[in-house]
């Protein structure tokens, strides 16, 4: 209903996209529209220029390079769900995004760069040691997921950069995903968890919606690697997360549920 009069640029190639990004650092980047269109209709975003990557070629691939899985930033949740190669954690997360209509448009890159702490797929990247490949006319660089989100909707992303792909190294271990949303579908997260554990070697305990950014719980991870009792791991993570009260839930609930989810998973793992 609120007509947006912004000028729209629709690059067909990545090179064009990067040049346009360099020329228009103020432009709003658009992919599947499932966030941007909501902001426009709510009147909270009033861009004059929009860089629409939906039709940009080369962003929807899923392949391997240098021993890593490479996910194009333009892959939709449906693409992920239909791919047998996609990591099970990511598939679990993609299935919880909105419902079918949203999954058909919502992209991995959009979720990452929208940067909402409640983004359903974001803890998965933390659990998988993913790196984000950022491109600009100046070249390429990789940023670990663990350092990409710096504060509430603050990303390590320069005004001339675009996220082009996500690199996931070959990781092992038991993994677990859990979303606690407001309902079974079309739900915004109250708590999201993605975890991975290689007994005695590596642990990833990553959360969404319990702090200003998607986050890992480093102290709890260390304790888990060191073989600390589950009680101790849970106690540490409950200290590390910083949930808030909002219209959807309470800080108390989020903190306790985060702990319960991790406890349930850790107790289900084979010992040793």
């Amino acid at each position, binding site marked *: 209903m609120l007509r947006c009069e912004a000028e729209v640029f629709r690059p067909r190639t990545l090179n064009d996209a990067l040049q346009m990004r360099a020329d228009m650092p103020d432009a709003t980047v658009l992919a599947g529209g499932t966030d941007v269109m909501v902001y426009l209709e709510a009147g909270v975003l009033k861009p004059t220029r929009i860089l629409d990557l939906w039709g940009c070629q080369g962003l929807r691939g899923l392949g391997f390079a240098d021993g890593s899985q490479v996910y194009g930033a333009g892959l939709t949740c449906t693409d992920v769900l239909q791919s047998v190669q996609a990591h099970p954690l990511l598939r679990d997360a993609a299935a919880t995004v909105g419902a079918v209509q949203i999954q058909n448009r919502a992209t991995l890159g959009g979720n990452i760069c929208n940067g909402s702490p409640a983004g359903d797929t974001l803890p998965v990247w933390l659990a998988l040691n993913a790196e984000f490949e950022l491109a600009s006319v100046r070249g390429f660089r990789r940023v670990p997921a663990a350092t990409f989100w710096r504060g509430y909707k603050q990303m390590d992303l320069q005004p001339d950069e675009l996220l082009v792909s996500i690199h996931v190294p070959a990781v092992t271990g038991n993994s677990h995903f*859990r979303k606690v949303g*407001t309902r079974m579908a079309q739900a915004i997260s109250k708590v999201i968890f993605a975890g991975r554990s290689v007994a005695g070697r590596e642990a990833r305990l990553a959360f969404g919606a319990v702090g200003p950014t998607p986050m890992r719980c480093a102290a709890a991870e260390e304790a888990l690697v060191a073989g600390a009792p589950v009680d101790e791991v849970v106690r540490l993570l409950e200290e590390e997360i910083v949930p808030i009260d909002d219209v959807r839930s309470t800080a108390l609930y989020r903190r306790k549920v985060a702990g319960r989810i991790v406890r349930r998973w850790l107790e289900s793992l084979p010992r040793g």
Partner: protein
Amino acid sequence: MVIGTSPPRRDGMDKLTGRSLYADDLRPSGVWYGATVRSSRAHARILGVRRAEGFDWSNVVLVTADDIPGLNVVSLMTDDQPVLADGIVRHVTEPIALVAAPTREHALAAAQHVVVEYEDLPALFDPLAAEGHELRIFGEDNVFKRIRIEHGVRTDATAHLIRGRYTTGLQEQLYIEPQSMLAELRADGGITLTGSMQCPYYIDRAVKRMLGHDRVNVAQAVTGGGFGGKEEYPSILACHATLLAIAARRPVKITYRRDEDLRATTKRHPAVIDLVTMVTARGQLLELHGRVWMDGGAYHTLSTVVLSRAMLHLQGPYRWPYASLHGTVVATHTPPNGAFRGFGAPQAQWAMERHMDRIARHMRLDPLVLRRENLFVHGDVSVTGQTLQNPGAFAVLEAAERAAAAPVNPKRVRPGVVGAEMRSGRGLALAWHGCGFTGNGEAKIRGKVALELRGRDVAVLSSSTDIGQGTETIFPMIVAQTLGIDMERVFNTAHDTGLVPDSGPTVASRTAMVVGGTCEKAAQRLLRHLRELHGEGDFDALAARAEAAGGLVRVEETYEVNTNVEWNPDTYQGDAYPCYGWSCVIVDLRVDLDTGEVLYDRVVTATDVGKALSPVLAAGQIEGGTLQALGWATQEEVVLDKQGCMRNDRLTNYIIPTALDGPEMITELVEIPYEGGPFGAKGIGEIPMDAPAAAVAQAIEAACGAVLDSLPMTPERVFAAMEAR
């Protein structure tokens, strides 16, 4: 025999192909769009309303209370609610001024540039504190209505005293089609309103009184759900659109955005209910002492009637030798609450069913045994002194138990959930629901239906709207069956107050039972009339003779009130309702022990519908109402800010069930006929709202031991209750 079969709904294919025109689909040439300037304060004096500088006002009309030609009143029951605030605002979102412009966006922008200056006044938000408070909102003591009911004989037997408090929150009707209304000027200087509505004649009267003349007609557009939310509220949109159309001298349409609809329109009344009961050691109920408070919001709307229905259903489907009930509905500085499916009865029966479980817990009785011991049987007397004829409580209980014996399908999908620790539980609850208006309501309304011969076919003229429940289908079925002709030859006309008589509002589970019954009588009258004109013969022969003779053949029938019904509105004694529907609900669910989330596996309902005129439509009403009740039970919560404004004013955070939240439903229709209804039919629209929430609470308790006496039972509350065990 078409009655008892399920022909496809009349409006079905148009709806399924996108051809149906809803109010917002109408776009007459030259139409402008309206927007509403609303109060940002709960209680304030308006010092001024002005156009902001720097905005182009050239193509905008602005309307304030000064532009109202007649009464500045939204006519309903009590003339307390203004069409536009005149000097004082009494709740946040109260309409202060209106704008119209050539586009929707332009109108919204203009509304944002209307500056209102306020002088804030103290405000009351807590209904328990508002009663009798020196700060006046309504009347002498901020009480819209008090109701006292006392009946029976107090016991001197040895008994256990059991006491409990039960609360319920606001609930939004959440029709998927937002409120929408179009006003068009007629050549004769009158106004035609077309919109989304349940009750054309409510609007007709409201607009006429506001204008001070009678050149008004109101027509229903295809309406995308109501649930009570389009009972009284559309009168406000209609008055607003009318004022704008007059000011702009062109058609004006107002369609609320969803956020505005959520913030501004009526909700289900929240309730606080204290019950104190005396019960024998064997579980025989002896005395019921009930205290009910409801929050009506800033204006009266229908609050007294909502309280009335709450008080009349508070006893549940159980016999109480003595009852003393006291109810109050109070004014606060919050948006007015209003009609919502069930109309007070769900709140009351939530309390009673939870209290039955409390009694069972306290007395160490099986909750079902306790219920069986006290369920109404033929000849029992209610707290109003009404002797119950053939109550269906046991029949629905047995039907539900039979259906629930089938195993539950365990394969539910929960995206994003693996390895959760779940506990299963089953819960059962019962309810009754008075069909049609309370007491002598129908005698006051005297609802009418007309039939007209159109060629050899028959037109049904009524103001009973189809809001999804199936009126366009049910009325032709009843008339066709009565006349002995094919249903294809009977159709409802447009529900336009310029054409149809006042059948009474489309509310209170009365449309099929009361107005449908009037359709049946009208069809009989039509046959008699044709025989008087054209001699003996079946309808076909008579209609052929009438067609050959030419001229208008029309009969009008007025609802005949059951003369057995005696009701004293002062003492609340007598026959409260002409008949009752009965319902039993058995819920199978699982509780996630780590999150307090409830996963519904299956809901079995058994409902006494009198006669299922169309089993598919009847089951559709029950299943939809059941899911709305499950939403009320565990998901739907209105969060208010400090001004009493709804914070979760979007569909992302006012949560209603999706298809994945909804359970498998098994719907048993029990038929204990009501002789006053068409072919035995009773009202069924509201009863599905009554029992499910309590069945859910009992099932949660069975699953994980968490005891919850407040609605909604959100995961946060279930979690806390599990921790508190």
